């Protein structure tokens, strides 16, 4: 087995997995398997944003270049909601169910909640879990009270073995705001009101 490729569970090859099951208890299991699958898939490829069609949103932002690059083209073009080898795909109403279930578990948030609910963040760790991971890293490396730029948090070699390395900018902002909320961080902004640095205590 190639370790660079995600190994789908065998149910992904089972055609009825792509049809909403009429039996409620069957459907609940089906839904939870789907949610788990999506989170594992995104975690494996470090995918932070998906659209409603199940495709990875390509990121053009200069500073985020490193994120999209490492993904194989096959992953960028394929939809997680479709299995071409058995010619099955999820219908929109089922996708909606999955999205709201993930939302309920705090593993998903729409990028733009007001106008178009087409794209969303996938938190394979919830924002809460992310914030403790970062906090733990800061404590373990003795950086409490040090001012760090966002670049340092995400891209520095110091954090290269951390799961939040190369984290999506938008997700990071959410995590930092969570830390501010918990009174564990102070955020520094520039003239354009953009967050540039953070001090974590």
């Amino acid at each position, binding site marked *: 087995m190639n370790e660079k490729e995600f190994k789908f569970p065998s*149910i992904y090859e089972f*055609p*009825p997995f792509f*049809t909403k099951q009429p039996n409620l208890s*069957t459907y609940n299991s089906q839904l939870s398997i789907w949610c788990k699958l999506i989170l594992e898939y995104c975690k494996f490829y470090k995918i932070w944003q998906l659209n409603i069609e199940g495709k990875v949103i390509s990121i053009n932002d200069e500073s985020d270049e490193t994120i999209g690059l490492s993904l194989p083209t096959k992953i960028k073009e394929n939809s997680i909601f479709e299995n071409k080898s058995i*010619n099955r795909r999820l219908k929109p109403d089922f996708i909606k169910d999955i999205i709201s279930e993930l939302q309920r578990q705090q593993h998903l948030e729409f990028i733009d909640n007001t106008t178009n609910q087409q794209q969303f963040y996938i938190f394979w760790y919830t924002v809460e879990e992310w914030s403790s991971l970062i906090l733990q890293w800061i404590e373990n490396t003795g950086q409490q009270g040090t001012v760090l730029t966002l670049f340092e948090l995400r891209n520095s070699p110091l954090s290269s073995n951390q799961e939040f390395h190369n984290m999506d900018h938008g997700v990071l902002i959410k995590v930092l705001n969570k830390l501010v909320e918990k009174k564990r961080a102070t955020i520094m902004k520039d003239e354009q009101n953009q967050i540039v640095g953070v001090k974590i205590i």
Partner: protein
Amino acid sequence: MNNKKLGLSAFENYSDIEKQFQNLGNSLLEKQSTELATQLQVFQNALINYSKEHHKEIVENPKFRSEFSKICSSFGVNPLVGNSSNNEELSNIVVKNDEFYFELAIKIIETCNETKNINGGIIKMKELKKLLNLSYNMNSLMPLNFKISESDIIKSIGCLKTLGDELKIIQIGSKNYIKVIPQALNKDENLILETCNFIGGYVSVALLRDNFQWEYIRCKSILDDMVSNGLLWIDEQGEDGEILYWEPSWIHGK
């Protein structure tokens, strides 16, 4: 002989002495551990020989047997290592005692209940065996290459007979299944599951009508019934648009 150095050069001496102590310590430790290893080996061999010599007694006397397996596990000795010829026989003696079968029975019930929402409470023997072996292999107390066989499962389920026949082995076509639901399968349901296995995992209304000359309404009502019992999954994306009814054990491949 006096090689005691005085003044600054005495410090040099310290590191030399320290090194010598360390060397001595290391060689002592090494000697001790090889001795222990030999002792362990001897003990292991003795246990294996003992189990061979008293084979009959171990098999016949359950009290003796459980004491013997207790000794094996408390010493962390695995009498199965290095004894390939009657591995299976030994593992049957040492591990598979009555207690083991009761424990296995509990594991069977747990596994069946965990998968009930997916398969409606009917699980293929082969799949159950796979799941059980998976959970046993994660248990480090079990001997290496330890395997649960179908006859173990059958024996274990036999232990639970007194609890009624909710947990039961049934035969569909040529294959064994384990059922954890109170109701029995009727003839039509049996035939449908058998056909699924035969054709490649699924049936449809047309398929049943053509093969068994059933009326449309009979096909439809029995299939819907089975779906609402969780025994079949529907697939709306079949090639010619007809709903296909899949048997859930195909989730785990052919």
